[in-house]
């Protein structure tokens, strides 16, 4: 297995799949400014996916472009974290999922700026600026809605209870992660976890939310084993290329 390729591919998949989910709110958000904000942030993720998948294609060295990777792979060949593919649910769920992933990306991209992989470091230097805005925005919403009305608090607590089991996967380490950290390509996931927990626990407590007790973590993304939702997501995302192979602008 080309572990360097695999490592970057996962990152690209996280950006692509999460960007796709966020885009689903376009035209459907609770109010106009939030519709624009969500779409803007989704665009940042898709843009990031373009750069990461292009770099992955170069590392794989089999001639696959960003478009080949995004639109022609099947479900078992995607390696995003499951948390990214979860359906958008209500707005509370979307924002809670968003914040937990934004906080992860903030620490990941901060550390990747010194990656031994020069292209990854450059992508990270770009991404960290946008992620800094993302995590401020989503973090603000956690507090506003968590420490909000009875209804907003209830919805946010339900969202946290539902999504928490998916966060463990972010910090698990397999041979690809070990390879990346031993080569200085990526950070040690355990170190990331400490930073993330510190920020997230503080934020959730300020939002008067109860942090769920440790539960059995749900995973599978690194092996390409996905939730039921992934098939439907890809069917929609890849529809054009699957129906009209080779179609371009």
């Amino acid at each position, binding site marked *: 297995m080309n572990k360097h390729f695999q490592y970057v591919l996962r990152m690209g998949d996280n950006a692509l799949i999460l960007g796709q989910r966020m885009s689903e709110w376009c035209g459907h958000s609770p109010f106009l*400014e939030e519709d*624009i*904000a969500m779409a*803007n*942030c989704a*665009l*940042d*993720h*898709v*843009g*990031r996916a*373009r*750069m990461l998948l292009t770099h992955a294609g170069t590392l794989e060295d089999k001639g696959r472009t960003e478009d080949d990777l995004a639109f022609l792979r099947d479900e078992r060949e995607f390696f995003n974290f499951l948390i990214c593919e979860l359906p958008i649910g209500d707005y509370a769920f979307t924002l809670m999922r968003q914040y937990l992933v934004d906080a992860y990306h903030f620490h990941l991209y901060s550390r990747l700026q010194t990656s031994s992989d*020069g*292209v990854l*470091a*450059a*992508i990270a*230097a*770009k*991404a960290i*600026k*946008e992620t*800094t*805005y993302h995590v*401020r*925005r989503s973090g603000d919403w956690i507090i506003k809605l968590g420490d909000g009305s009875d209804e907003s608090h209830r919805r946010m607590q339900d969202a946290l209870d539902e999504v928490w089991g998916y966060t463990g996967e972010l910090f698990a380490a397999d041979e690809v992660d070990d390879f990346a950290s031993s080569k200085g390509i990526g950070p040690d996931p355990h170190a990331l976890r400490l930073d993330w927990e510190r920020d997230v626990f503080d934020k959730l407590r300020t939002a008067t939310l109860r942090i769920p007790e440790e539960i059995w973590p749900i995973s599978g993304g690194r092996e390409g084993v996905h939730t039921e939702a992934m098939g439907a997501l890809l069917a929609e995302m890849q529809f054009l290329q699957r129906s009209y192979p080779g179609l371009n602008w």
Partner: protein
Amino acid sequence: MSETEILQLLESVHDPEIPSLTIEDLGVLRSARVSGDTVEVVITPTYSGCPAMDVIEADIKKCLTSNGFGNVLVTTRLAPAWTTEWLTEKGREILKKSGIAPPSRCGNVNFPENRIIECPMCDSKSVELLSQFGTTACKALYRCQTCLEPFDYFKCH
């Protein structure tokens, strides 16, 4: 042809949304050189997903091929990362004249809006943030509390 002459030709390539703002003013155009029968132009993208970059690349090619260059290569260079600090003074003036408040100098990119932002219409410092996300990925939406007009602010990046 020298780099200077090529850069002069590229002065006609502008931001797709703001015709008076050139890619040089934006700090997107990094360098240009002739190597054999190929002219290579290096650009650096502003935001990760900025859709204008594809248009800018196409415009660069069109500009140079219509000026007689057979082989045009546009290279996107990610590092060093583009920053609003690369906007020229002229670029900032043009933004303001187009009704967009130019970015503050980013001392600390983590807290950009602690700087004072002025209304591009009436210069008032009494403004309020409506949304961190405006009409495009690079802008935030503000409203002037003096003349009551809403305006875009180019976010410090």
